[in-house]
């Protein structure tokens, strides 16, 4: 059973979202997602300052075998990207909830965080797969 930290929020496309305060969130992919992908060898992150809508395709994670789109979990503005991923994409495999974070964004409406999945909701979703 893969790890699903209780303090994070989730979307069904396998991203996790951590609220850092003041409407800023950090986004990455879940441990379950990296297990499905296998060895990650290339990550394309969004551009800082770009404005995104919920469910926009804004990043790509490519494993040896397949490419996966990463979606903006909510509307907002990208404020920071994890530059380590360019040289060390394998961080998504080794530490998906830590050093393998992908980007940070300022949410347009912080109250929308409540619409995301809880750890329990997400666990239920992936159990049905």
């Amino acid at each position, binding site marked *: 059973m893969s790890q699903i930290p209780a303090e994070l929020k989730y979307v069904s496309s396998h991203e996790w979202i951590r609220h850092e305060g003041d409407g800023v969130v950090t986004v990455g992919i879940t441990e379950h997602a990296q*297990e499905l992908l*296998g*060895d990650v*060898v*290339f990550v*394309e992150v969004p551009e800082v300052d770009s404005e995104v809508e919920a469910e926009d395709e804004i990043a*790509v994670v*490519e494993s*040896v*075998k*397949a*490419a996966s789109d990463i979606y903006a979990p909510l509307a907002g503005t990208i404020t920071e990207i994890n530059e380590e991923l360019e040289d060390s994409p394998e961080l998504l*495999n080794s530490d998906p909830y830590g050093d393998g974070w992908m980007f940070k964004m300022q949410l347009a409406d912080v109250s929308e965080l409540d619409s995301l999945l809880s750890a329990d909701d997400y666990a239920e979703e992936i159990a049905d797969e």
Partner: protein
Amino acid sequence: MGSKTPLYQAHVDAEARIVDFGGWDMPLNYGSQIDEHTAVREASGMFDVSHMTIVEIKGSDAKPYLQYVLANDVAKLTESGKALYTAMLNEDGGVIDDLIAYYLTDAHYRLIVNASTREKDLAWLENVAQQFNVSVEERIDLAIIAVQGPQAVEKTLSVISDEHQELVSNLKPFTAAYAGDLFVARTGYTGEDGFEILIPDNQAIELWNQLLAAGVKPCGLAARDTLRLEAGMNLYGNDMDESVTPLESNMGWTVAWEPEDRDFVGRKALEAQKEAGIPHKLIGLVLDGKGIMREGQEVLVNDEVVGVVTSGTMSPTTSKSIAIARVQRSLDAEEVLVQVRKKQIPAKVVKPGFVRKGKSLI
């Protein structure tokens, strides 16, 4: 639930990620496909390929039958255990499958065909066999373990009985021999030295565990695919299928035109295609930029689509994205553009064959 090989439980015990492959529950990887790939390039790895279909062709017409049903000529095989790589074609020259044929006697050959094409292959072989005095019999009582890598020979010999050491160590490439119950072939699908070992199903797990104890790393289908692609070897269903001929698929060398009076299924169509001009060829591509080429992506020159990627990946040995692509035969560009997702990225045109015996060729 799919079919299971005799080694299925060993894969589960090793915490393999199991996936469906042509109706079989097979290991995709045992953790990291890159580590598995590297083990085969630098040391040794083993693959359960028991899902592949083994077919015995027996009878007084075995030789003329195979001379008719295969595009390569089994008459080239005169020593017991000698093998050849060949396509099996339909009347239009389309590739029904690619396979290895082993010669045992004039009245007994053994074919190893792809798992994903099992049913249509058997149906085709049986259908053509009606005109000949032969039997077509699938072997479901054998497992196959491929041991590959620069240390594969040494590791395999360490688990082979003393009386068969010399025989196995002296096997030449594309040759097989019986070592007791084992049928050991010096073949593979990785671009490295090694063996493919056919073994009675009830002995397979013991051999697997002996190899494991000798330090051979279990490798899944994912590593098998990146290894074969680095070696520039075609994968049936990706790089060729019934819609193309071997002449369009870098397999011209497997078509035996001589003797001229040997009729084989698809010969007339191939001759007509040669006469009219072969429309396509397979090339190798090395991406010059960030991104990974994938099957189905378009290949462009001067804004014009000239072909399509048939297999693409990130090559673990070279850390570059490599691909095989089917393009117009007339293409002689040294560089093309590949539509990688939303971007067009330059790629260098090379011969398919990117890594051989651990060394990058690009």
